[in-house]
């Protein structure tokens, strides 16, 4: 037996991962006043009132006890109906859906349920900052595949094929994507699915932004024949229903995988919060009109923001979903870190440097348009002034 290294108190796995690159900008921005923040990765709407009211009512009626580990069956039935209606995804509420503490937990238990030590998981980047560290924490090895603006940040089949090794277990994709806003349509996903099947891989598909698909309908890779059996879909209430602070997500997968995930969930989280689950039932039953209004507002702001970026000389591909613009800052000659820091210090606009989202992100900044139109206008004015000082 190898003796443990004395003096080192934290685990090797944790020591392997780095703190999020966003942290540095959070610390810097938090110390300043009068900032226009485009760095916020959550809706600027408050949870619809009827949903908040359902939570209050849940407490009033005394629902303060645990629920079933997988979540209230009533909620899982609602989730199942919702998935069928919105995305043509049929899943059995009894054994193919688990309600989780946010989509973050869903990602964690999905990875821990499928990854063995040494397994490789392909992470399609730029993407949400948690994926690669979560693979590491699950004992796996994240393998980064970078997408580019030239390909509209879509995963190209040949890129996937080149990254696969005998150790590859799964790929992690997220469309609509944070931070690029990029989406992939059915045909494009079909080409990916063929390779996934050929190499007998699993897919973790984070579809938390599915409702925020602006041009055409959202396509899930699980819709493709043969893929349902090898796909784990991550979703939740945070983005569509403006419920980030509620920490309520869900994961859907074939029952052999959900039963594995449920073991981890029951020993770590036990169950998601009861009052939040009651609120989520109300959200699914009566909240879709609110979702529609919020999505329309995001789309209008996207249109405004992207056109404005193009006008001031920061080329920006049109994001098909989510609420982020990911303009290129390459023609300024600055790195994304330099750009974000100087912009914050001189014009007090907070954006997130693209490199923190992984390969393919450098040369871009993530700007959330989940903020008021007035803020967007002022931000564009200030960014324009900033880039003019660089000329």
């Amino acid at each position: 037996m190898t003796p443990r290294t004395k003096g080192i108190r934290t685990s090797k796995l944790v020591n392997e991962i780095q703190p999020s690159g966003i942290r540095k900008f959070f610390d810097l921005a938090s110390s300043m006043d009068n900032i226009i923040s485009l760095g916020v990765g959550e809706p600027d709407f408050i949870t619809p009132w009827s949903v908040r009211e359902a939570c209050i009512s849940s407490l009033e009626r005394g629902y303060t006890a645990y629920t079933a580990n997988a979540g209230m069956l009533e909620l899982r039935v609602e989730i199942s109906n919702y998935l069928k209606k919105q995305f043509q995804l049929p899943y059995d509420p009894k054994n193919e859906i688990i309600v989780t503490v946010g989509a973050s937990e869903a990602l964690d238990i999905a990875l821990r349920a499928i990854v063995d030590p040494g397994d490789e998981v392909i992470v399609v980047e730029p993407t949400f900052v948690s994926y690669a560290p979560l693979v590491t924490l699950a004992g796996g090895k994240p393998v980064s595949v970078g997408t580019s603006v030239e390909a509209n940040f879509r995963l190209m089949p040949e890129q996937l094929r080149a990254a696969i090794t005998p150790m590859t277990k799964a790929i992690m994709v997220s469309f609509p994507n944070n931070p690029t806003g990029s989406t992939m349509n059915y045909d494009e996903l079909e080409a990916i699915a063929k390779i996934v099947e050929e190499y007998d891989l699993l897919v973790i598909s984070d579809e938390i932004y599915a409702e925020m698909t602006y041009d055409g309908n959202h396509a899930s890779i699980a819709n493709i024949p043969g893929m349902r059996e090898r796909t784990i879909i991550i979703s939740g209430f945070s983005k569509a229903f403006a419920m980030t602070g509620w920490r309520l997500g869900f994961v859907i997968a074939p029952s052999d995988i959900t039963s594995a995930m449920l073991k981890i969930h029951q020993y770590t989280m036990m169950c998601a919060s009861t009052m939040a689950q009651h609120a989520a039932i109300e959200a699914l039953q009566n909240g879709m009109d609110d979702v529609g209004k919020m999505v329309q507002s995001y789309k209008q702001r996207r249109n405004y923001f992207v056109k404005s970026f193009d006008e001031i000389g920061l080329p920006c591909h049109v994001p098909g979903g989510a609420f982020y613009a990911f303009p290129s800052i390459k023609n300024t000659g600055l790195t994304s870190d330099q750009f974000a820091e100087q912009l914050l210090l001189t014009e007090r606009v907070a954006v997130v440097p693209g490199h923190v989202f992984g390969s393919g992100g450098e040369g871009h900044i993530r700007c959330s348009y989940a903020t008021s139109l007035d803020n967007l206008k002022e931000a564009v004015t200030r960014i324009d002034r900033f880039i003019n000082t660089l000329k």
Partner: protein
Amino acid sequence: MDSKEKEILQLIEENSRIAVDTLAKMVDLSEEETVTIIKKLEEQKVILGYSAVIDWTKVTETETVTAMIDVKVTPKRGVGFDDVAERIYRFPEVRALYLMSGAYDLSVVIEGKTMNEIARFVSQKLSTIDSVLSTTTHFQLKKYKHDGVVFSDGEEDQRIVITP
């Protein structure tokens, strides 16, 4: 009416002061196309006017009193309620007028400087109209929400500056 026209109407209803160039970008049209649509909607009387929602209680010296009056009337042959409704809505004091189902026929919203002014309007102008059978006046005590706008300072953005 196409979806772009509806979208423009919704945005103007929310903020009638929105600049045309901003509006055009938001609905993904050119400025010229947007101006043409607005002009057409004005000509078609779909857009009837541009107004502001003001909380007058925050403006001292300009406090007003608002009352809602339930009016029972006798409809006239041939013109139904329209004739008496027109006689009522022509008064400048009348801010809104609706034909209602239920216990009374017309709902009249009146605004005046004082309660006396409203009382005078009801007794001297409204009640004296031939078709009017009875009136019940309710004074508005406080405005919480009007035309979809909540009369408070609103909920603050609680989000932290940068999130993942």
